[in-house]
């Protein structure tokens, strides 16, 4: 909900989503997922089963008091709280999101904590921040002394990963985690949501720059970014697994060792836009147009199936030859 001072000045939103495979040999049931994501006793875990299973933790807050990562290297202090939540999709894919809203102007002096606590999930500048330097900076600047939102998300992943009662750490396939850094600025009055940029950087980093209709709840934007991150992770992991294993070699068992876990654990997770707020649906349309996530996914899935069909034929021929 917007506080009175925000109705006139623009409010930016920034966040990071980390996506990884749950460290477990099997998918968790909804009941187990609920236990895993119970980060607070005073708030519920949200469980949905249509379309697809999705479990969402309550929000937790982390207090921060540090420099804003600004592209123009200006030193502006930001004080407030960063909100975080975790999500588990199909009992298999674990995501941790950390995010905050940032009005471009805050009080001229550092206020007592009570002031900031009354605005949960908001990072207030002491003074002003230039809008574009903030949006750009968040996607590029990672420096000592600046806000390190990735660490907050990582700490949440680590906290969940410590749940030895529910997790056996025996992952069916090794995969890297991805980090999606996103920023959103309000669109012009009357305009809808749009995707200004989506880039793949090194070390599993993706950056997303969005415009969202004024008044959009930040959790809706977070939900969109989690959905983007999840599908990007699926593509990244599939490409890595398929490209790094020289198929075409005659060794059928090696091929099956790679393809088996993909079929068992990943192929059924593709469902772009399923849980995205309707006002933000246009963003997925843009991505499907160019670069075309689903197009690439279906090609990859086809490759998996073709390889499996080929293996079946080959093993049959071998059986006939030796029999």
């Amino acid at each position, binding site marked *: 909900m917007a506080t009175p001072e925000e109705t006139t000045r623009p409010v930016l939103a920034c966040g990071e989503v980390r996506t990884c495979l749950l*460290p477990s040999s099997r998918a968790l049931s909804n009941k187990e997922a609920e236990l895993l994501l119970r980060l607070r006793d005073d708030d519920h875990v949200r469980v949905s089963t249509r379309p697809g299973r999705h479990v969402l933790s309550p929000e937790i807050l982390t207090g921060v008091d540090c420099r804003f990562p600004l592209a123009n290297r200006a030193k502006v202090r930001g004080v407030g709280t960063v909100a975080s939540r975790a999500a588990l999709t199909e009992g298999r894919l674990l995501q941790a999101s950390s995010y905050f809203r940032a009005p471009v102007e805050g009080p001229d002096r550092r206020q007592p904590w009570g002031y900031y606590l009354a605005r949960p999930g908001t990072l207030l500048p002491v003074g002003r921040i230039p809008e574009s330097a903030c949006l750009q900076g968040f996607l590029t600047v990672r420096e000592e002394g600046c806000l390190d939102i990735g660490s907050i998300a990582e700490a949440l992943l680590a906290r969940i*990963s*410590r749940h030895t009662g529910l997790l056996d750490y025996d992952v069916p396939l090794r995969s890297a985690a991805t980090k999606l850094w996103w920023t959103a600025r309000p669109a012009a009055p009357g305009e809808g949501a749009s995707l200004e940029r989506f880039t793949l950087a090194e070390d599993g980093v993706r950056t997303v720059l969005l415009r969202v209709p004024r008044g959009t709840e930040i959790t809706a934007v977070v939900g969109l970014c989690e959905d983007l991150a999840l599908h990007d992770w699926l593509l990244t992991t599939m490409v890595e697994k398929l490209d790094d294993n020289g198929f075409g070699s005659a060794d059928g068992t090696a091929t099956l060792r790679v393809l088996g876990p993909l079929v068992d654990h990943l192929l059924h997770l593709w469902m772009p836009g399923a849980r995205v707020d309707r006002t933000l649906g246009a963003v997925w349309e843009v991505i499907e147009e160019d670069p075309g996530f689903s197009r690439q996914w279906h090609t990859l899935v086809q490759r998996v199936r073709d390889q499996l069909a080929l293996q079946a034929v080959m093993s049959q021929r071998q059986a006939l030859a030796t029999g």
Partner: protein
Amino acid sequence: MLVFAASDKGGTGRSVTSINLAYRRALDGDDVCYLDFDFGSPTAPAVFDIPDVAKEAKGRGLHSYLNGMTGEALRVDVWARTEHQVLRSRPSGAGRLVLLPGDRTGGEFVTDGASLHRCVDLVNALRREFNLIVVDLSAGRSYAMELALSATAQTELRSLKTRWLVYHRWTRQHVMAAADLVTGERGIVSAGVSLGHDKDQLLGAIRFVRAAVPDLGSPQWSQVPPAQFAWMRQCNRELEGIAAGLGIGRSRVLGSVPLEPVLQLQEQLITDEDVLDSRIANIQTWQAIGELAERLADDKHWGLL
């Protein structure tokens, strides 16, 4: 799998050999990460030939991470960042090879529960991504070693297959020191047991690597006078006797690495090119490291004897 590389004394080639092991496992298709816990003298960036890392790791390396000064430890993709001619292109079929460099800037070590938790969290995150995690510990009984033993005793890491490589040179002093490091009063086993490890299980997970061992069968030694050669053979036998007496005889040895100029003088990665084309490294060393890399992952060579 988690592998700790330890040694009682310096100069055993522990770091450089472990890095070569990590490299060879990655060539074989394992996803490997190498953690430089040797905070006194981080050598990994030099061996991997990534010169900028030391500067980059300032305040973001493992030391700073364990001390809570940064939320995440820096990761460096070796294939992408190395300036080594041969390593630059990741061979097809090779797994990932990632370095987590140490840094000297993290201040004094605080041996509290918080750094233990951070260590466990780090390993937990890495095991999702890598099938081999190699941790290079500094020489002697160090804080890093205690941390390694405490972390692996925690419930979160109990299910992770953990192995220890203890490097020593093939001399009387080194053999005795290595035995003491493992079974001595303040050694790995007694420290481990006091932290909650099972004695037999821990012992079964420790193997020795003999470094800089002169291979008396090699042409290198064929020129020495017969009297000297006989004397060397005699010394070798005596050393075997001492090692066996201390409980680190052949059955506890995972492998030996020959006396190799490239490891001793240059401390560098040995690639097949060094052996086959430029011939600066000996084929025996290449084979010895390959054998070590294979045995490291082979259960047959591990467990209680």
